[in-house]
Structures are given as C-alpha cells and as structure tokens.
C-alpha cells in the first residue's frame, strides 16, 4: 500500500516535472546571444589601414583649412594696411568682402567635420557589414532567435551586466571573431 502510494506520488511528481520542463522548453525557444561589435572591429586586421587612411584624410583637410585661414588673415592685414588711405565706400566694400570670406571659412570648417564623418562611415561601413554577416552565420549555426548589441557606436552600454554564466552561455563575440578568421 505504502509502496503504491509512493509510486503514485512519484509518478505525479514526474508528471508535474514533465509539464514544467516542457513549458520551460516552449519558452526556451527564445534563444538569445549578444555581441560587442566594437571589440570585433578593433581586432580586425583591416582596421589599421582604415585608421591610417582616415588620419591621412583628416590631415589633408586640416591642411586645406589652415591654408584658407592663412589666406584670409593675409587679406585682412592687407586691408588694414591700406585702410587709412582708401575712400569710405571702398572701405565698406572691402569689409563686406572680408566678412563674406570669413563666413565662407566657417562654413568650410563645418563642412570638413561632415566630410570626416562621411569618410569614416565609408571606410568602416564594409567592415561593419562583414561583422553583420558573420553574426548572422554564427546565430544561424547556434540556432539563436536574437542577437543583441552590447553597446552603441557612441559607447553607451546596452547590456550593463552579465553574470559569469551568462557570459559563457550567451556572449558570441569570440565565435564571431572565429567566423571572421581573426
């Protein structure tokens, strides 16, 4: 009798256990991983050349700006020299011209900033595409539902904390690097 009771309770326990496990499994269909693209990017061998090219571009643009600035200052000092000997209307004209030149210079400075950003996107973009593709391949191989980005390109954390177990289980950064042959 006692044995019978025991086996029944064991059975029902097993049944409950089975139901809970299968429920957990159903929920578990949602498999996630996460990746730190910045970490991958920094380790890509192409990155060195990209940084060098970007630096060259920045240097070139800075040089252009410095030349324009110097040219402007030269014209200002030329004007200051003849200021006392030219007519009032000529003065006004000159000052208008210099004012326009000055705003052009400022515009150029803003434009450089934009061009540098564009250049960066143009150079880093293909590398990010490669990472994207590698993440997809790894995720498909691992049967993941989602892969979450660890931080924004501005450096803001999206994932603030991962337990050690979660790191081992869900961080696929290493796998993505392997896929890329790094």
């Amino acid at each position: 009798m006692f044995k019978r009771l025991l086996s029944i309770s064991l059975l029902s326990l097993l049944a409950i256990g089975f139901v809970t496990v299968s429920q957990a499994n159903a929920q578990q269909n949602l498999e996630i991983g996460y990746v730190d693209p910045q970490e991958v990017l920094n380790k890509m061998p192409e990155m060195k050349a990209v940084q060098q090219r970007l630096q060259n571009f920045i240097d070139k643009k800075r040089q252009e700006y410095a030349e324009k600035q110097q040219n402007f200052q030269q014209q200002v000092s030329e004007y200051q020299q003849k200021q006392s000997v030219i007519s009032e209307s000529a003065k006004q004209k000159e000052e208008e011209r210099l004012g326009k030149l000055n705003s052009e210079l400022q515009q150029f400075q803003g434009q450089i900033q934009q061009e540098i950003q564009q250049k960066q996107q143009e150079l880093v973009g293909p590398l990010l595409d490669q990472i994207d593709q590698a993440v997809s391949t790894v995720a498909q191989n691992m049967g993941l539902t989602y892969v979450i980005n660890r931080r924004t390109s501005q450096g803001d954390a999206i994932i603030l904390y991962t337990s050690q177990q979660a790191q081992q289980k869900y961080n696929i950064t290493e796998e993505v690097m392997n896929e890329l042959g790094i």
Partner: protein
Amino acid sequence: MLLFVLSTTAFGQIKIGYMNTQEVLSQMPQRSDIEQQLNTFIQNKRQELQQRTAAFQDSVAAYQQNKSSMSEAQIQQEEQQLSQMEQSLNQYQQSLQQQIQQRRGALLQPLYDKMNEAISTVAENKNLDFVLNEATSTGENLIYYSSSKQLDITQEVLQLIKDTSDSSAKN
C-alpha cells in the same frame, strides 16, 4: 525533487533586469561635488580665454595707435606677431571644448565605477543573468516596455550606492 529543481534552473528562463543609469548617476550623492569641480574648471578655463582675448585686443589696439610712427619693416613684423597670436588664440578656443570633455570624463569615471559595482552586487543577489540599460546617455530609449516593474533595479542600485557611500563617509 532535487532533479526537478535542477532541471528548472538548467532549462529555466533567462532572468533579465533593467535600470535607468542616468537616473542613478544624477542622484548619486557624489554628483553635486563633481559638478562643482567641473564648473570651477570651466570657469577657470573661460577666464583664461577672456584674459587671452583681452591681451590680443590690447595688442591690436596698441599696434593701430603706433602704426603711423612705425617703419614698414616694423609694421610687417608687428602684423606677423599679431596674426600668430590670433592663430594660437583660435587654437586655444578650439581645444577648450575637448579639455572640458576630457575633464568631465575623468571626474565621472569613479561614479561609473561605483555604479557598475553596485549593479553587479544587486544582480548577483537577485540572480539575474542580464541587466539592460533602459536608455542611452542622450535619452534614447533602449527598452520601451516592461510588463513588470519588479525587473527595474534602479532604486535598489541607488539605495546600495547611498548606503555604502554613507558608511564610507562615517569611517
């Protein structure tokens, strides 16, 4: 029974918490002290810029006054000097923003470290696998919706920081 417990933990759901880092950072007790330090730094730098600008303007005015009594060579030399002065002034002005950013980063780093430490402690106590950031530092949402406020650990992290800050102040 033991098997059952094991299986739920092994196959259990991932436990995810979230929090608002900006809220914690803005309410940390050390915050006002750091803001004051940063403001002092900015004021000092602004003063320096004003002094340099004034010095440059004085030099220009002095040059314009004396110009008529100067030789052509002197004028050229003087103008070259003034243009150099202007250039270095411009450079200084441009570097100011960067200097302030750097100073800000250096001052805030200990706050971030303390916050991260508190996040780890709270997450470990609550057995969380992940803690997600609710919003970026520019205020963009990373999490739009959560069905349970219990997953929000912002107040717990803040409380822990306050508690540990108090005790270290007393010691």
